[in-house]
């Protein structure tokens, strides 16, 4: 779920309700846009384009802050939104004699959203059918139903896998943290953490399981720092992240000949 100011949750995870960090995962720009429209209960036929653009871009920044590689399509949509926004700001030239008034600059986007939404609903129906079907077993069909890599998860969702793994760790940390937090500023720096993760990986040339990078019993702050360190190492091409199958463990490997 996107919050009005999602970054604040990352920086200040213990604010008020200490809600767990929610990392919304959107398949594409259309899904994200529809989500924003619904969440803020906007009229799809009269989208407040400035507001939606702002929220949309905020989400992109939010993902960027986590070093998530967003599909290029997200950026294309951001550009489209801004273009529409600027066209909305321009005064409308009067329609030439005898012609209809110009088309609303939002029209094409609205049409696409409505079309996409139909299929999203249809997908919801398929999910219901799947749920029902999952409760009916043909004879000898148990093998077919075994969970495993046959479950359709795209290989390019590595970033998503990492985020979800992070979320699991944070949720666990949340359960542990009943001790009132004390003030310990600058207990660790990112640079220090990178060195620590790197050192651990040096001792394991075959790689470490993702979870093993995180010190057991670490708090949120430490988990996030470790995760950021991992992302930093990934970006620098010093480690590689491998997930052999859809439901498999995530392996972090140092890149050789550095």
């Amino acid at each position: 779920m996107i919050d009005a100011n999602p970054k604040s949750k990352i920086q200040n995870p213990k604010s008020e309700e200490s809600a767990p960090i929610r990392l919304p995962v959107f398949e594409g720009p259309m899904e994200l846009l529809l989500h924003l429209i619904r969440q803020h209960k906007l009229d799809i036929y009269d989208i407040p384009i400035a507001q939606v653009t702002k929220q949309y871009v905020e989400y992109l920044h939010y993902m960027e802050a986590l070093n998530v590689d967003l599909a290029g399509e997200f950026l294309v949509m951001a550009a489209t939104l801004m273009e529409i926004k600027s066209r909305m700001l321009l005064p409308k030239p009067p329609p030439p004699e005898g012609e209809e008034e110009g088309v609303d600059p939002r029209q094409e986007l609205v049409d696409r959203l409505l079309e996409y939404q139909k299929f999203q609903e249809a997908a919801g129906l398929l999910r219901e059918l799947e749920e029902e079907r999952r409760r009916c077993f043909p004879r000898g069909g148990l093998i077919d139903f075994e969970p495993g890599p046959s479950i359709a998860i795209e290989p390019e969702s590595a970033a998503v896998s990492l985020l979800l793994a992070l979320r699991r760790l944070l949720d666990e940390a949340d359960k542990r943290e009943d001790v009132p937090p004390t003030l310990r500023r600058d207990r660790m720096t990112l640079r220090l953490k990178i060195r620590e993760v790197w050192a651990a990986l040096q001792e394991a040339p075959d790689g470490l399981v993702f979870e093993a990078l995180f010190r057991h019993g670490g708090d949120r702050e430490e988990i996030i720092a470790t995760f950021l360190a991992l992302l930093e190492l990934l970006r620098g091409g010093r480690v590689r992240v491998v997930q052999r199958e859809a439901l498999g463990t995530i392996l972090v490997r140092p890149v050789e000949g550095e």
Partner: protein
Amino acid sequence: MTESSLDRLPEAIECLLFAATEPLTLERLAKVLERDEAEVYRAMVELRLRYTSGRGMQIRQVAGGFQLVTHPDFGEIVTRLLSAPPGRLSRAALETLSIIAYQQPITLPEIESIRGVNASGVVKTLVDRGLVREAGKKESAGRPMLYATTDEFLMYFGLKDLSQLPDLDTFAATLSEELSNPSGTPSQEGEEAPASDDDRQETSEAA
């Protein structure tokens, strides 16, 4: 087959459905039983009637045929036989499947223009899984590959045939109502959010 066993056509069909693991069409049943399809159909109706209560099994009409499957009411119990509950398709896979199911045959660029995002990975996974098949090439520039759903798709979702899917425009109707009426019903407050939330949770389970 002896005379007496031929008299008991519903029971004979029951045996065949039990012995076969995949759905059997009326045509196939009629051939094996050496009866005409109308007669087999009447016996099937009679048999299905007997299965309407007091049974742990049911006869489903799926992918153009009939299949004996466990009753959904006992799904949870059967699942205990498994190390983990049966897997689910990802949201991206379901979305792509719904586009292919309604617009088939359809090319990859056409799927991508609806979803607004690259779909080659998903489509490949769906083909590997047998839910989608390549259905020739489109006679247009570059002759792109066309995709269509398979019988496996029908079986996976327990569908008799594609016509069982509701008309796509029925979705449009409910939608316009919902999205153009933002102040809507009071219950809308929490309605959308938890629904999509559940979905995300699924994704996290799957990863």
